[in-house]
């Protein structure tokens, strides 16, 4: 794995929200790499910080939220440090994003075609006519028949699936190097979900785009991803290639997730069945954040926060990986 192969490098990212009830440490030291042409899946329960991580990459975090620490390296630039005007050149052009909410993510008062064309006009040196032509081609590419007609429609007249296709067309309009898809199918019908995912796979093959795919759904992960990052309570708890993770999960949380997914192809299944709840993000426990729900916890885990351990292909944040600790500590009740 050489550096030239890395498309994006997130290092020790911390994004906090300064609310009236205290500092919400939504993303608390997340690191990962995305290689060129690779699909990286980020999985984890609701509220674990997946969206905040992805918004941080494009610097879409609004006050009271703030990127506190860490760096996000893209083409030798640190996205957390560059000027806003430089960031605008990256957004929609080099890195683009599809959101969790297809129904509300398009502007209701503009024709969908014009919204795609706007992105093209912002980043490419073409005239309006050319931008329109390209937009219609993109609409066809994402599987929309009657593309000329749809170009002139307003979002409210399209279904959720259609709108998400339009969002994908818009996100791909400038051939981005990285596409961030934040639960692109969660809000859609099951039948549409599969179509959208297939579409993304096809487009990835065609353009060689790296994809960061955020999902609740391990079925989707198995089908789409090369690499998987499991997040829990604002941190990465396990990371490995997709085969290793499914065959040999090491973190008790990951194991729990896999057990709660009966079949890989059941797209509806969500990660809910581990008993207990996530501690509060404004007051993380001192020790392991999974302690209160872990069935294999050691006494040691309650007071000591585990670090990520392992080799470059498989890392895990769990004391069970440390033989010394396992030898010395008892299983807790």
């Amino acid at each position, binding site marked *: 794995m050489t550096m030239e192969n890395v498309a994006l490098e997130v290092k020790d990212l911390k994004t906090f929200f300064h609310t009236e009830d205290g500092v919400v440490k939504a993303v608390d030291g997340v690191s990962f790499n995305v290689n060129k042409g690779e699909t990286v899946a980020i999985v984890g329960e609701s509220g674990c910080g997946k969206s905040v991580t992805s918004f941080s990459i494009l610097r879409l975090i609004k006050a009271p939220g703030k990127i506190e620490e860490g760096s996000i390296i893209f083409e030798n630039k640190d996205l957390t440090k560059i000027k806003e005007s430089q960031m605008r050149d*990256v957004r929609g052009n080099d890195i683009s994003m599809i*959101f969790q909410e297809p129904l509300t993510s398009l502007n209701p008062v503009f024709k969908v075609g014009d919204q795609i064309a706007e992105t093209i006009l912002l980043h490419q040196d073409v005239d309006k006519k050319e931008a329109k032509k390209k937009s219609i081609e993109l609409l066809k590419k994402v599987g929309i028949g009657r593309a000329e007609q749809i170009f002139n429609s307003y979002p409210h007249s399209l279904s959720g699936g259609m709108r998400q296709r339009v969002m994908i067309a818009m996100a791909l309009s400038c051939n981005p190097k990285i596409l961030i898809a934040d639960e692109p199918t969660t809000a859609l019908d099951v039948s549409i979900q599969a179509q959208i995912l297939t579409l993304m796979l096809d487009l990835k093959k065609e353009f060689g785009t790296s994809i960061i795919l955020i999902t609740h759904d391990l079925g989707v992960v198995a089908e789409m991803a090369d690499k998987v990052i499991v997040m829990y309570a604002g941190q990465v708890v396990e990371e490995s290639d997709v085969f290793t993770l499914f065959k040999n999960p090491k973190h008790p949380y990951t194991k729990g997730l896999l057990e709660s997914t009966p079949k890989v192809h059941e797209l509806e299944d969500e990660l809910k069945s581990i008993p207990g709840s996530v501690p509060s993000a404004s007051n993380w426990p001192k020790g392991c954040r999974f302690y209160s729900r872990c069935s294999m916890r050691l006494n040691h885990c309650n007071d000591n926060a585990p670090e990520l351990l392992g080799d470059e292909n498989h890392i895990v944040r769990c004391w069970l990986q440390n033989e010394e600790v396992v030898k010395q500590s008892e299983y807790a009740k």
Partner: protein
Amino acid sequence: MAKYLRKRLLEIIPVLLFITFIVFFLVFWVGDPVALMLPEDAKQEDIENLRSALKLDEPMLVQFGYFVSNVVQGDFGKSFRYGEDALPIVLERLPSTLTLAFTSMIIAVLIAIPAGIISAIRRNSATDVFVTGFSILGKAMPSFWLGIMLILIFGVIFKILPVSGNGTWAHLVLPSITLGTAVSAEMTRLVRSNMLAILQQDYIRTAISKGVKPLSLILKHGFKNALVPVITIMFLQISTLVSGALVTEVVFAYPGLGQLLVQAVSGRDMAIIQAAIFVVAIMVILLNLLADLLYKVFDPRIKYN
């Protein structure tokens, strides 16, 4: 569209009938119209004669019938004060009032839209606090007081603008500012709250993620969504505008509908009062219809069927 317009126009008929009804009863509510028309020492016989000449001795419903048929022909009777048909007198005043209302609305919009937008994007900043304070003040400040202050400052101290009458653009300046300020206060507040809500929307985040520049983000992606509420607000302010016009016209001796109406009320000139109310009501109805049609232009989600 044509079908919708026809339907809306048909809906106006019952509203008009209702207004006619109210206007008709206004006379009886104020007192005996015959007694109003004759000098206080008139003989009983003269009173009776006039009463039957005016068909006022017939049943109410019949009288209402006469009234409606007169109104349809534009006949509200003669003004006591001017001794002429009331409607032409009222209509003659209409253009001045419409001009005042129009310029005031322009001033209000010119203040409210930038002020509202700026205080929304600079939420909780000193600017926002200033704008909010100003709009509270503008709402609390009585129009006549502001009018008098403006007369003092610009007419009496600096002597740069005429303080009464009409005919030139200069005459419009102070009354329009007076009325426009009153209307802009409420409008600023509503533009601000609408923009605040819009800036939280997902499509704004989408626009940022595409690399849209700040000005285009706020005006194109943001404010265009606020247009429908802003138009609604503008037309909702018409009642403020009309009532404000009454006061403003009196303060500046501006010869419009408001001044005429105030004079007519104090002189109990019923024909003028009736005609003026009728004309104002029709004006408000037509403006509301216009507002509905404008929504369609600015919001593709609104369909007429």
